């Protein structure tokens, strides 16, 4: 009897897998195309990943259908959590492929995108990165595209800003094993040294570190003018607050990840004066699509119990989605290779500017917004373009 129950349970469990897979099959006449969302919802980058997903969900709400060969297809988003972890990323990517995704969007965090890149390539499913800025994501991968600018550009922008601001000595803090952080840190150092500056201290920390005092004590001893600390949202307030606590007055700068209101919330008064570069400024919509997006998305954020400040990654998530739709329309197909060929021909006005891909699969973006934290808000400082 007991054996029978066990057998029955095993059978039920096994069949649940069948049902899960069966969900992607077309139902009763309504044709649908699946877009996979490959983003971290948990783990170190869970917060930022969620904001990017919100942008995609909103885009799906605004544009729920796509026309292929004159027929209307419903677009269904299938989300897979890559847990900010390179091993989990591979599993998540595979689950998206097996759920029949025609295009995949994501991910927040370059490391996981690089880890999953080969899977998309091998299965010939094109992927569109929203905010993964490391060059390695698209380099040598014919199936990876992205709608944001790259780290060498971003590093140069920040180095130029620091240099023009009168900084001669810089300290760099990067996270070990994080492709985004160490990549951007390196590009900054290189650009800053080329300008004639001096990198006086390079410190590294482990993932999940919460105590930066020892690193910062070393930096204090080197007395830099600026500290460049590209890192995750979770670590940012810790670095900022502990630096101020140790009496370090140098200007703290970082990359796109830091444009997140939770940093100001957590670091409070210490966050004043922090400078960062980002993709998007909601006070200055660059395109008609942007104006429309800003209005609608603010309401959507409130509905989802988020502060009504638009994170740049949400805008990029939205852009990644509409780029995918455009490519599917151009390709007139739900097949991966056809969509990929179409992506190369995409030319559209997104929320973060015009999106055209170069041969490498990177959007031709040559403008970054520099923002500074002032009175508890991100204040637009200037735009910088580097050719």
């Amino acid at each position: 009897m007991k054996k029978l129950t066990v057998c029955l349970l095993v059978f039920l469990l096994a069949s649940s897998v069948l049902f899960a897979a069966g969900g992607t099959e077309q139902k009763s006449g309504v044709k649908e195309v699946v877009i996979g969302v490959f983003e971290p919802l948990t783990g170190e980058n869970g917060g930022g990943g969620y904001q990017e997903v919100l942008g995609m969900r909103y885009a799906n709400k605004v544009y729920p259908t796509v026309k292929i060969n004159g027929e209307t297809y419903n677009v269904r988003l299938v989300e897979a959590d890559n847990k900010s972890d390179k091993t989990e990323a591979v599993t998540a990517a595979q689950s998206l492929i097996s759920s029949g995704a025609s295009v995949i969007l994501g991910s927040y965090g370059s490391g996981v995108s690089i880890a999953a890149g080969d899977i998309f390539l091998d299965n010939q499913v094109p992927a569109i990165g929203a905010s993964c800025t490391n060059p390695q994501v698209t380099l040598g991968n014919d199936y990876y595209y992205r709608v944001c600018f790259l780290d060498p550009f971003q590093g140069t922008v920040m180095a130029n800003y620091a240099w023009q601001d009168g900084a001669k000595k810089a300290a760099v803090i990067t996270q070990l094993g994080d492709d985004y952080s160490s990549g951007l840190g390196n590009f900054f150092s290189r650009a800053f040294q080329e300008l004639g500056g001096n990198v006086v201290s390079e410190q590294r920390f482990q993932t999940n570190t919460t105590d930066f005092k020892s690193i910062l004590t070393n930096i204090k001893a080197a007395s830099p003018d600026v500290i460049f600390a590209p890192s995750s949202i979770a670590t940012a307030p810790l670095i900022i607050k502990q630096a101020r606590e140790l009496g370090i007055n140098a200007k703290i700068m970082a990359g796109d990840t830091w444009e997140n209101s939770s940093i100001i919330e957590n670091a409070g008064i210490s966050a004043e004066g922090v400078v960062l570069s980002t993709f998007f400024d909601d006070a200055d919509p660059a395109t008609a699509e942007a104006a429309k997006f800003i209005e609608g998305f603010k309401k959507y954020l409130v509905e989802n119990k988020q502060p009504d400040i638009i994170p740049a990654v949400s805008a990029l998530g939205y852009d990644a989605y509409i780029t995918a739709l455009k490519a599917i329309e151009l390709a007139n197909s739900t097949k991966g290779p056809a969509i990929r060929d179409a992506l190369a021909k995409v030319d559209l006005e997104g929320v973060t500017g015009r999106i055209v891909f170069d041969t490498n699969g990177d959007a031709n973006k040559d403008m970054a917004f520099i923002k500074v934290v002032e009175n508890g808000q991100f204040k637009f400082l200037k735009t910088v373009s580097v050719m």
Partner: protein
Amino acid sequence: MSMTTILQHCLTGISLGGAYALIAIGYTLVYGILRLINFAHGDIFMMAGYFMIFALTSFPWPVAILITLVVTTVMGIGIERAAYKPLRSAPRMSIMISAIGVSYLLQNLSTYLFTAIPRGYPEIPFLKRIFQMGELSASFVTILTPILTIILVVILMILVNKTKTGMAMRAVSKDFETAKLMGININRVISVTFAIGSFLAGVGSILYFTDRMSVTPFSGTLPGLKCFVAAVFGGIGNIPGAVVGGFFIGIVETLLVALGYSTFSDAFTFFLLIVMLLVRPTGLFGEKTVEKV
């Protein structure tokens, strides 16, 4: 490296060590009584962080601290009642797996309830006051942590060695069955143990997060594991051992990072665990166990 830099590093290390010591005691106490490694302990510590955040939004800080400590203690006892007590006669492995389950449950529950976006830990003004001693600069909590740790450990030692409850705890840890036959209320003793462990994790949590200022659902994982190593290093089941282990790991870790070897700071902790288990499995202060037949 100048003298002030070295002193600053030492201060950071001792403070970190103090918080580690408080958590390590929780592991050691529970192991001593139940022979269980309570993997959920790090997550209780994390939950205490969230309790404090919510308590401080509506109460002044002395009340908020009290609420946090009480709720954390009750949660510790509750977890024991719900997840460990029904398994008391089950093989030891089952209860350990249950502990791992509780750990993941707490992590994912808090991800669901509070999202993975880090929450700012509220500032308690008098703890955050910054002290300047010459070139040294530290907040009050950094200095308070090791002092409070020592005071609490002394009180705990008195409790264990001088009171009736303490005697019961020692008896249970020596021989579970005999203690039961002698009329000791095992369930009460175990509840008290979890209460003390969770209370100390609550205190540790307040000190640790005030200094580090943000809580995520995964904040408890790594400190939890490190404190487990600290407990093993000092001799699991031994309270002063756990304290020494906590301070040792805190200081060495800080110094390794200070010297630029942050790559190895975590590796060191777990390397220490392996070496200790190979060379002296009973830890620094652990008693040699004699196999009874």
